[in-house]
Structures are given as C-alpha cells and as structure tokens.
C-alpha cells in the first residue's frame, strides 16, 4: 500500500432495509484529530462501527492501516492497534471502574500483571478518575461512566481511536480535560470522533467531515468550513424571506444565512454557519 493514509474507504455502502446508512462513501485520511459532524441518522455511528471492525459493510472496501477488516487475520491485527468507544457502552454496573478497565486490558492482550496495573492506572488518571477507580460503576455519574469507557478505549496506546460522541454527558470542565487527552493522543495517532457540537470541532479538530444521509458533504479544515459561508451571512432586524435559515441571536438581532440582499450587513462566518449552510443547501436540493 503506497499511501500513508491510516483509513481508506472506497465506495463504502451499508443499508438497513431501504435506508442507506452509508452511501457510496469515498474517503481517506489519518493522523491527528478528525471530527465527524452530521445530524442524527446521518450514518456516523454506522461508519464508526465499520471502522472499528465491529460491523461489516454491504459493498465497497475499507482499509485500516492497509489491512482489510473482512479478512479474519487482518481484522485481528487491526484490533491490536485500535481503541473504540461506542455510543452506548453498556458497561456492567456492578464492577468497579478498575475491575472493568482491567478486564478490557485483558481483552486487549495485556498479559503481564504489573504492566496491566500500570496501564489501568495510567488511563484512569488520563480521564481524571484516579480517586474514583475503586467505586462501583453504578455509583458513578453518567459523565464519569462515559469517562470509564473512554479510559478503556485508551488502553494500549492505540494507533487509531474511534470515538462515538465521547463528550456526551460531560460538563465543560471535563470536556476540556478530554480534549487535552485526545489532542495529546492525536499527536502520534489518529483520532476519529463523532459529535453534535460544532464548538467542539472548532476547538481541537484538525480536520472536519460532514456526513448526512450516508454521504460526505464536506471534507476540510475547520477554517475552510467557516470559509464556505463567507459573504453568505448577514445581520438584520427582521426575518428575511430570502434567507435559507434565520434565527434570533442572544443580542436580539436576526442572523441569516443564504444569499444576502444588496446593502445587507454581512458578518464574519462561524463554523456553525458553514455547517448549517452546507446541510441546509443539500436539504433544499434533494
């Protein structure tokens, strides 16, 4: 394999009944933190599960580290360098956080007891759960439970981290901490995370993908995404009929996206604006 892309997708498709969760997706990339944006039902989770070698595709090819998850031996090799955080972790609530992460460490073939103990401590410290590590999972808050699952995904220094809405249920302080950890991991590995929050993407993703109804609508940097809405955003006092989207901002003004009329007060676009523009325009077209 020539390219140094960690992930390569070619005409990837997956259907559930008559709906296409992933529709002829082509993409390649790797290294750094990549954010996956998109509305609910866009196919983000499905895509992530295929990348995590947990779900097989209907058609098309996937290559992770140049290996094919459809081949059993290669799938095993991928999993040895992979960390996955599903949307619903489904952790057994009677285990302590330590027990659970230790169990996953065994599943990740960390056989030596001392190494395993140090690894478990390391990842729990990374997510800030050192003091809580011996408490049962059912006594922990939702955000803490999410962090336990994240810790388990971080075991073994994976080269590819696939995270499905990792920050769900975390307060801003915890999100910041998580971002620090993930940025750190992104220095030498690939982090692919899905999220609803554009501000999260703006904060630390080097690359952004927008997925809607199984199709890739955008692939670029956060700045490029905001740039898509250059000269397409303006402020007004009353809702404009010609705008694609309008809403009232905190100041009381109306913010509009679309084609501004002449003389309108055009403003600097944000990431949000770019995202809304792209997803709304597609909706209008289809």
């Amino acid at each position, binding site marked *: 394999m020539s390219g140094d892309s960690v992930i390569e997708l070619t005409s990837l498709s997956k259907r559930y009944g008559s709906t296409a969760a992933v529709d002829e997706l082509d993409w390649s990339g790797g290294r750094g933190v990549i954010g996956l944006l998109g509305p609910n039902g866009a196919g983000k989770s499905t895509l992530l599960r295929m990348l995590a070698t947990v779900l097989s595709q209907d058609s098309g090819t996937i290559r992770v580290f140049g290996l094919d998850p459809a081949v059993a031996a290669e799938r095993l090799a991928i999993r040895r360098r992979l960390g996955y955080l599903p949307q619903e972790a489904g952790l057994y609530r009677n285990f302590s956080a330590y027990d659970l992460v230790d169990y996953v460490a065994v599943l990740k073939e960390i056989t030596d007891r001392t190494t395993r103990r140090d690894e478990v*401590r390391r990842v729990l*410290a*990374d997510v800030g759960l*050192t*003091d*809580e590590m*011996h*408490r049962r999972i059912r*006594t922990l808050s939702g955000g803490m439970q999410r962090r336990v699952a994240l810790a388990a995904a971080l075991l073994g220094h994976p080269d590819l981290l696939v995270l499905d809405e990792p920050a769900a249920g975390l307060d801003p302080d915890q999100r910041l901490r998580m971002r620090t950890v993930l940025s*750190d991991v992104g220095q030498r590995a690939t982090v692919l995370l899905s999220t609803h929050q554009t501000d999260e993407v703006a904060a630390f993703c080097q690359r952004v993908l927008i997925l809607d109804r199984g199709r890739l609508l955008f692939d670029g940097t956060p700045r490029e995404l905001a740039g898509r809405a250059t000269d397409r955003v303006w402020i007004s006092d009353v809702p404009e009929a010609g705008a694609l989207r309008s809403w009232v901002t905190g100041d009381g003004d109306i913010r509009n996206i679309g084609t501004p009329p002449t003389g309108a007060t055009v403003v600097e676009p944000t990431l949000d604006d770019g995202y809304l523009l792209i997803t709304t325009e597609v909706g209008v077209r289809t």
Partner: protein
Amino acid sequence: MNSVNQATRSVAQLGMSRGCPDGRSDAELVAAVVDRDRGALQELYVRHEPWLSIRLAYRCSDRSMVEEAVQDTFVAVWGSADKFRATGPVAAWIWGIGIRRLLHVMRPRKSLRERLLAQRSPELLSAEDELLVGVEHGDVGLALGRLSPELRMVVQATVLDGLSCQEAGRLLGIPSGTVKTRMMRAKREMREALT
C-alpha cells in the same frame, strides 16, 4: 512540553495532587473510604503516616519493620473502614490498628492455642487508667517519669497504647502475668506520687 506532560502523568499516576488541600474532617475521610474513595485514603495517609511512623519507631528500632507495619495499617484502613465507630478520634483508631500491625510484623504468628487464648476480650479500662489516658504535661507526666523503666513501659503499653495484657506481654517479651503485677505496682506508685 512533553517532559512536563510526562511528569504530570506520573504524578497523576500516583494520584498525588499536591495542589488543592482536602478540607474534609478525618471522620468524613473514613466514611469516604467506606465508599471506596481512593483519594480519601491517600489524604488519611498524608495526615497520619508521619506521626504513626514516628510513634511506632519508638517501639521498634527496625526501620523496615516500621515501614511494613505502616503499609499494613493503611491497607487495613482501606479494608475495614466500615468498622470505625465514631466514639473517638480517627487517629486513635489508626493507632490501634498500627500498633497491632507492628506486633504482627515483629512477632510471627503463634500457635493456634495461643491465638485462641488471645481472643479473650481485653480488660476494660479502670477509672485510674482513664485518668492516665488524659495525660497532660505536668504532675501526672512527672509521676510517670519517676517510675522505673520496666514499670513505665508496662503503663505505656497497656494504658497509652491500648494493648491487652497478652499483647503488651508480646511487645515487651514478658509473660502476661508479669504485665498484670507490674501494672498494679505502677498504679500504686503513681497514686502515692500524686497525693
């Protein structure tokens, strides 16, 4: 930047956040330990290890044994925090565990018969003993100082350290009967010294 990260990581690994002080009381910490709060145990360690190590060192000159006893103590605190009854200060409870752990480290396990004999409940403190426990700088301390070393050690072991006669005997290397007789002599002498 990386070395700072690594240092922070290893500090975090030990769980030592020297930054923010823990404002909880000792009793609250013990309750938190029952709830498996590792940070609470660490805080108890930070607060109580120093005096415990020093006090045990007065009873045993072997530093490695003292260290082992201190380790055992805090592991025991982790395991049996639910047994703490708030009838006295946490430090006293910790001392009770600590001195017994030291005994365990210093003297290997005796035969089953001796251990069964030791199971009988320790004697309750008498009124004079309770007075001695509330020792303050002054007359009583001086009276204690005037006792001969062998009597003083017995008083320290039984009254101040809270050991039973059998345990005091093991610590001092004398039979428990001798402990009892020396105790009686010590009380008599101190009573005479105080009046």
